[in-house]
């Protein structure tokens, strides 16, 4: 009987190593795929600090200002738009005109230099998103942006991944709500547009690549 070259547990080590090898190879693919979906990478829930301590809670809930008052191009354009300084000053030349919180706004208004806001909702590259068509189809702001009226600092609540977009583009009824979608009080019970949109034969186009990637 030849002496054993390896102890009996070496089999176990060998099998374990094989498993680790394959798992490691698989994880080279899987881990990055998981990583890109983490809130850390998508900047989900990250409270950005902004040059002006703008509080949506006060403007939306206390003052009852509609989204479109400031983000006025959302109905007409791909971009919802951040309001020009002149829009802020429209009210704040009358109210709180001495407030130190508004110093940056006043400086911008009188110097002509724009305020450099930090982008909160940054779509991945290669995507062309159009606000106006979503609004026109009764897609409420809150569906993607969350209840901004309860946010001190606006954060991104949706992951903005492609799969998240496709959740609705494949089953678009999921998001459709009230006619007055820019209301602050959207409720999912007001689904008035279902049938009309569902019968649209061009629905098939919603998942083709060039709908968003051009």
């Amino acid at each position, binding site marked *: 009987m030849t002496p054993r070259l390896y102890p009996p547990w070496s089999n176990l080590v060998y099998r374990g190593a094989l498993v680790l090898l394959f798992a490691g190879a698989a994880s080279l693919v899987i881990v990055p795929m998981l990583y890109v979906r983490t809130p850390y990478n998508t*900047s989900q829930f990250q409270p950005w600090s902004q040059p002006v301590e703008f509080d949506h809670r006060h403007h939306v809930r206390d003052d009852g200002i509609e989204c479109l008052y400031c983000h006025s191009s959302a109905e007409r354009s791909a971009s919802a738009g951040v309001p020009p300084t002149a829009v802020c000053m429209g009210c704040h030349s009358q109210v709180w005109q001495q407030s130190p919180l508004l110093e940056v706004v006043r400086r911008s208004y009188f110097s*002509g230099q724009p305020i450099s*806001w*930090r982008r909160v909702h940054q779509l991945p590259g*290669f995507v062309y998103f159009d606000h106006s068509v979503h609004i026109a189809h009764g897609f409420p702001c809150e569906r993607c942006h969350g209840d901004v009226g309860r946010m001190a600092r606006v954060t991104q609540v949706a992951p903005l991944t492609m799969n998240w977009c496709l959740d609705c583009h494949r089953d678009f009824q999921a998001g459709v709500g009230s006619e007055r979608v820019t209301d602050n009080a959207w409720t999912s019970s007001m689904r008035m547009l279902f049938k*009309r949109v569902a019968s649209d034969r061009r629905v*098939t186009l919603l998942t083709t*690549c*060039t709908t968003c990637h051009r």
Partner: protein
Amino acid sequence: MNRSDRSLPLAAVDPDPEFPPGVDQPPAELDRRRMIQLLAAGAALAGLGPIAGCMKKPSDRIMPRVDQRPELTPGVALDYATATVMDGYATGVLVTTHEARPTKVEGNPDHPASLGATSVFDQASVLQLYDPDRATGALDRGTPAELATLVRQIAGRERIEGLWFLLHPQSSPLIEDAIARIRARHPGARFAFDTPVSRRAVFEGSRLVFGRPLEPQYRFDRTDAIVALDADFLAAMPNAVRWSRDFAARRRIAAPQADMSRLYVAEPHPTPTGSLADHALAVRGSELRAIAAALLAAVEGRAIERALPAASAGAEGEGARRWIAAAARDLRTRRGLVVVGDRQPREVHALGHLINQAIGAVGSTVVFTRPAVIEPLGDDLAALAAALAAGRVQTLVIAEANPLYTAPPDLGVAVHLPRVPERIYADLAENETSRACHWFLPLAHAMESWGDARGYDGTVTFIQPLIQPLHAGITLLELLSAFAGDPEPDGHRAVRARYAPGTGDEATAAWQAALQRGLVTGSAFALEVAAVRLGDAERATLAAPPGDPAPGPMGQMRGQIELVFEPSPAVYDGRFSAIPWLQELPKPFDKLTWGNAARMSRATAAQLGVGDHDVVRIVAGGGAVTVPVLILPGHVDRCVSLELGYGRWAAGPVGDGVGSNVYSLRTSDRPWFAPAAGIAATGERHRLAITQEHQRQHGRQIALEATLDEYRRDPDFTRERWQSEPTMLAPQFESFFHWGMTIDTTICSGCNACVIACQAENNVPTVGADQVRRNREMHWLRIDLYREGGDDDPRFIHQPMLCQHCANAPCEYVCPTYATQHSPDGLNEMIYNRCIGTRFCSNNCPYKVRRFNWFDFTEDTARTRQLQYNPNVTVRSRGVMEKCTYCVQRIRAADIAARKQRRDIRPGEVVTACQQVCPTGAIQFGRLDHDRTLNVQWRGEHRHYAVLNQLGTRPSTVYLAKIWNPSSDLPVRLDEDTGATEGGAQDPAKPPGAER
């Protein structure tokens, strides 16, 4: 790589091989071992890629406007009506701006010189705006100076002695006013209006016949027989965009029984117009006078032999005599028209007028107006040169003109100009002449300026700014106003004062409406009564055969070689040298980019003992240049044509040293056609950057053609190329709607406007001459040129080739990452962020329309040029495949607009960039369920076909075969490629093993 030339010496077995020798040999530089090493290294590096791709994006900034402008919505593009001006002639355009950045030029449908289309140069003008080498400020003897200070100094001066201006031709009424004011303030001020592509001969010709300079207004839409004498009226003449549309109206044939116009062209080298000619006659430029005289004799019923030089009486002149006889017969019997090109001397123009008079064309197919340009027969460069030589010029002001580069050497401008005591120069950028001047004043680009100009028919067109001047700049109008004494000239004020003097709300609203329209309605010139005022003696002198000019008799292989000059179809006279789009534009017939060549016929090249890419030294007019040879079938023998606009030395990094400067061969008395004192091979070679090196079909039926008779006999002659092929593939998803394009090759002149429009719309990069030589040009749309018939008398077919959006797309099956796939509405989609660059798709594409980003061309694009990018199209990076998308961004934008209004996309709502720009309207696009659109109607015509239909790709792009309308008086041209035109013939030229 041992790549040889597209053409071999004549002694070779196959005179026109499809592939250069050595293409099937393994590459010499890279062996297998090295290749595998590189592959392994590449794979290892590729592993690092995903990690970089997964890095978190840095957070962006949003900078909203400070003020609120009701007309500006972020993300919504605005179109402004303005104009581009070339040598005085304005074309009305609509310029698209994104967030106040001009990005794309389209034609103004209301403007008579545009009708919605534009030329190559109009398209490229937006890139000129963003030229990074534009002047950023004024210079006083090379040191930076304050522009406003210099302008005030100018305005403060009075009665300047010996004041001369050298300007391009101008048509602006405001500039005309300013000139009158300058003459009042500085008595004796002289203005020379000149350009290297002068139209003086046109006006001298009409003055000779009618007693005053008149501008011919051709009515091609009412003409059935056109004879063009060296006239490229579809691409190179001032109103070419408009005339293309008019010409196509009578040329496009909707059904076999319909009628179409017939076109005769006599010219030295192929031009876009010549490539549509039913009968093209290759003659040397100086022989056209004899042709015109003979044509006049023929339409007047006299014998043509007496008008021709004696030496052409033999068999060699036979072709020309028959051509003249046939043309004269058509001119007499149909609604005829003779068009004479701008290069021809005044005598030929006069003869053209006499022929038109004789056939009754004057008043019907051609009418006359006064010229749009100011003082068409005033001082020119020669007059200025004489004053310079005589020392009479004390102060010289030059704007835009570049005489030290373009002036014929015999004028001595280069010698005398530096002796002028005070020299002031103004242009967009510094150049050859500005370096020799004391003051340099930066001009503002047209898109930064207020002004006006007249279109070819006199229509007053507004120029309005679309962007704040990128650099300090002054407009020509403002500069002239300063000389007229205005210390703070303001173009806007001048325009308002002339066109909208009122101040009330109503006046402002009317002014806004006029600006929106872009032109003054009804401001076209009234027609002039043109009566021939020519004495019999003068008439006889004109009609007599030329005595013995230096050029030899037509068609003969004797005498000196004649040089023909031509403004480049890409960079014109050199003023567009700094625009990379134009430098990389494949020219219509030789497909040459980045340079010019000595183009000649195969026989002439053989006689000189040179071939393609061989450098020759040409001596003429006191100068000498070295330039590579390019053989051009259809070129007249014993003649060499040379493009102006190359070989600049102070045009900036893009234009410097590209090609050869042939201005030094020109003389002032013979600017266009001159005998060469000598041509000899230097023994050197310079490999030209050519995008299409082979033009034969070898019987493969790629671009189809037929004569009108053949078409009437067998309307379905293209049947083999549209009948569906049996297939084993699963049927594709057939949607209820489907996008498709139809291209009529009968009216495609190959003018290249679509190529540049596509480049501008889709952020297509330029790659440089070296990459073009490696076949890595990026144009999504190219115009393939096919040549049928013999070398001496070829027929050209232009075939715009772009992604065919095949229903069974070969590229889609082979993509490992599904980066290219099919949309429900019939588009072949390309998704850049999925593409990993295997290039399988390009390999499998039979049309070879896919382009690969070998390098990060965008990174190499100057930052200012990046401002031109269309924000609605992804800018591709290295390692990504790209191709024509049918302008999917426009389709989806229309879809979004329609969805918002709860309606379907309307017929004609989506217009692709190439369709929009096409001067003849040869490209139609739309959804196939929109029955009433031209696109769908054209597809139903008998002569439609699909390229490479036999492969079963089922393309969405359909072509209409080119129909010729030859005269029965002339022999049918011989066909070298048998089977190319006949539907059922087998192709004998097919190499064994090719296809299937």
